[in-house]
């Protein structure tokens, strides 16, 4: 039964895996960005808002210019600009990071800035002029199993793998990466050794926001591909849980993103195949969010965070010892 009429590539498991990669990719970008910010000690709960602004601006750019590359750049800049607001509030003004992040998501999210931009720029209901699509040779894409799962994917997927490798090497093998980890673990020690704590926090929060913007653009430029209000539907929140789930390690983010991606893809696949048709589809659709809540609850105690390896200064502004 599992191997249906279209050969192995039509088997449920293969279809679910393929959709895990598709839906996991925006999560992966957003989680990598969140990971960079959190490694600097900045908790950014504005990811969802940054993804939506990235999605709408990226879509606008591709409709205006027809260039996908430029669209990704615009999405990154838009997400980064939002993150700059967060950085200014929490690093310079030392505002509460949770409040600032939530405020940004409310401000920019569904029914907020991203909706306004979508309406104002008349983006709704337009078909995309260009979208990211699989580009590898046809014979590769139809190969058994690896074809649909790994090779029948867009450039955004392959670029995300490169990003994972770059972030992993950056964190573990380079001097700025070492400094970044020191800033997140012990800003006082970093400061005493002449590392500019404020600069490191700004840069990584903003770059993190840019990643979130690209993650949002994955929806409007590849998955959907069009602009629909609130089209990320909570992916930003899943990405935040994912960072914890991955113990703040980029390679585990890759695994976790596809895990959560699978949960996002399962409802569509099951519905299309009529599998477990007695179960209301809403139950499947709620799975990734239930997983998110469970992960966040499990790790919300301070003790658990420390054991999991959360950056020790996460969530706390750095103030030089003053009197």
């Amino acid at each position, binding site marked *: 039964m599992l191997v249906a009429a279209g050969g192995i590539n039509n088997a449920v498991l293969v279809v679910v895996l393929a959709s895990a990669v598709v839906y996991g990719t925006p999560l992966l970008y957003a989680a990598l960005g969140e990971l960079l910010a959190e490694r600097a000690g900045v908790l950014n709960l504005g990811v969802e808002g940054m993804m939506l602004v990235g999605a709408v601006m990226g879509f606008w750019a591709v409709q205006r210019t027809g260039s996908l590359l430029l669209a990704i750049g615009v999405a990154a800049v838009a997400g980064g600009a939002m993150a700059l607001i967060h950085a200014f509030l929490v690093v310079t003004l030392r505002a509460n990071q949770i409040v600032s992040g939530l405020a940004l998501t409310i401000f920019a999210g569904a029914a907020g800035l991203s909706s306004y931009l979508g309406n104002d720029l008349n983006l709704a209901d337009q078909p995309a002029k260009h979208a990211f699509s699989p580009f590898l040779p046809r014979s590769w894409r139809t190969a058994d199993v690896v074809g649909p799962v790994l090779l029948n994917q867009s450039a955004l997927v392959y670029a995300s793998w490169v990003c994972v490798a770059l972030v992993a090497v950056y964190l573990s*093998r*380079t*001097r*700025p*990466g*070492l*400094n970044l*980890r*020191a800033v997140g*673990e*012990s800003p*006082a*020690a*970093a*400061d*005493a*050794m*002449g*590392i*500019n704590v404020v600069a490191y926090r700004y840069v990584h929060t903003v770059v993190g926001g840019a990643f979130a913007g690209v993650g949002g653009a994955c929806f409007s430029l590849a998955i959907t591909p069009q602009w629909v209000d609130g089209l990320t539907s909570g992916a930003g929140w899943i990405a935040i849980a994912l960072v914890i789930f991955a113990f703040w390690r980029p390679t585990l983010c890759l695994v976790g993103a596809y895990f959560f991606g699978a949960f996002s893809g399962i409802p569509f696949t099951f519905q299309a195949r009529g599998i477990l048709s007695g179960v209301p589809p809403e139950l499947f659709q709620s799975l990734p969010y239930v997983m998110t809540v469970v992960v966040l609850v499990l790790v919300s105690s301070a*003790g658990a965070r*420390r054991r999991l*390896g959360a950056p*020790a200064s996460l969530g706390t502004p750095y103030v*030089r*010892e*003053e*009197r």
Partner: protein
Amino acid sequence: MPSAVELRDITKRFPGVVANDGVRFEAAEGEVHALLGENGAGKSTLSNILTGLYRPDEGEIVLWGEPVSFASPRDALDAGIGMVHQHFRLVPPFTVAENVILGDHRGEGKKFMVHPRRIERNVAELGKRYRIAVDPRARIWQLSLGEQQRVEILKALYRQARILILDEPTAVLTPQEAESLFETLRVMADEGRTVIFISHKLHEVKAVADRVTVLRDGRTIDTVDTGSATPRSLAALMVGREVSLAERVERDGEIGAPVLEVRGLWAHGDRGGDALRGVDLQVRTGEIVAIAGVAGNGQRELAETITGMRAAADGQVVVDGRPLRGGDAREAIRAGIAHVPEDRLHTGVAPSLSIASNVVLKSYRGKQVTRGPLLRLRAIRDHAASLIRRYDVRGGGPELPARQLSGGNLQKVVLAREFHGDPRVLVVASPTRGLDVAAIETVHRYLRDAASSGVGVLLISEDLDEILALADRVAVIYEGAIVGEVDAGATTVEEIGLLMAGGAG
């Protein structure tokens, strides 16, 4: 010898305080120069200025004859100034080697990629040369405080510091470890480096420094050769009058039956693991028993477990023959255990509440304090006013928020509250840390009086002079267990020091 560092008329003001008021300071190449002063004399501010954390409002920093100005700690590091802070600036999950190269941006540090092997080799060599070897691959959280201090010194040496400032470096060391630190400092000075040694311990200053500069109230009082100074003359310079150094005083009163017994006490630490591992201890009425040990060997957990702030994992706390259930501060208070905690500002009082509210914090259920559900405010105020008079609390009346008191006066408020409940047992942790000499004398007198009146006193302190001046018996704690007990009248600093390092064996 040419002078390596010179501070000319440094002034630094903070809102409401002049921390440094025209300070002059000069240290030569190849010398160990002590900076001596009481808490609040301006030593820390001065070192923060020298390391680029603060900018002076007035005055000039001159290094090897060149005036310099530091915009950030990085500038000071680049100019060859290294600092070992009292609270270490280390990244706990990092390895020793990673901590050492942190922030380095010269030589090897210019490279974008990190090469752990080469760095580990360099760090190991450096450690060998200065006899402060530490495993470069160990992670900081695995190291003892003494080893962590070595890492801090290695950091400075790796960055080629020619001037090294150490802020109260012996606070976390056993006397023997302190000796070996002094040897390292001498080696560094003999190479032509300048060591600035900040302390308020007179015998250390005598032991290690060539010259001493004394600060008081933010001003430079004098610079003297250590050879011609005595502890007594230095103390007089530091305090501004003749003082009696802490000395043993015989007390009245008899030592009676055991009032506090601790039997096989185990407790978990904040980070998991066992902080206490089977502590046995006895305090009799009228007796002062001291717990000596290097910081972080379970002292805080012991005080918290006895006073009910922390639940015991195993074992018993017995007061007057009656075992406590444990983990319940109110039960401990009822049993007659009074507690003067280590962190007097945050655990000892509620800092934003008034003195009056703070002195009744433990007795608010009593008739003198409440009538039905309401507080008797006038009675509370009168009670506070009488305690303020009796304990000579200076700085304000009953309505003053506790946090506005100086350390010494704050401690008097805590002592007043704890003594007032007629305790059977008094658990005091580092009661004089950070206090000036006059306040130390007062606190010591109160503790002696408490013992004379029949209270059993458990004194937890890292200050051996204090312990030897006050205690009848000294129990030494190491890694959560009592490793030895000595008679305070017949022991020596060396004997206790050996026990503090984990026992004579």
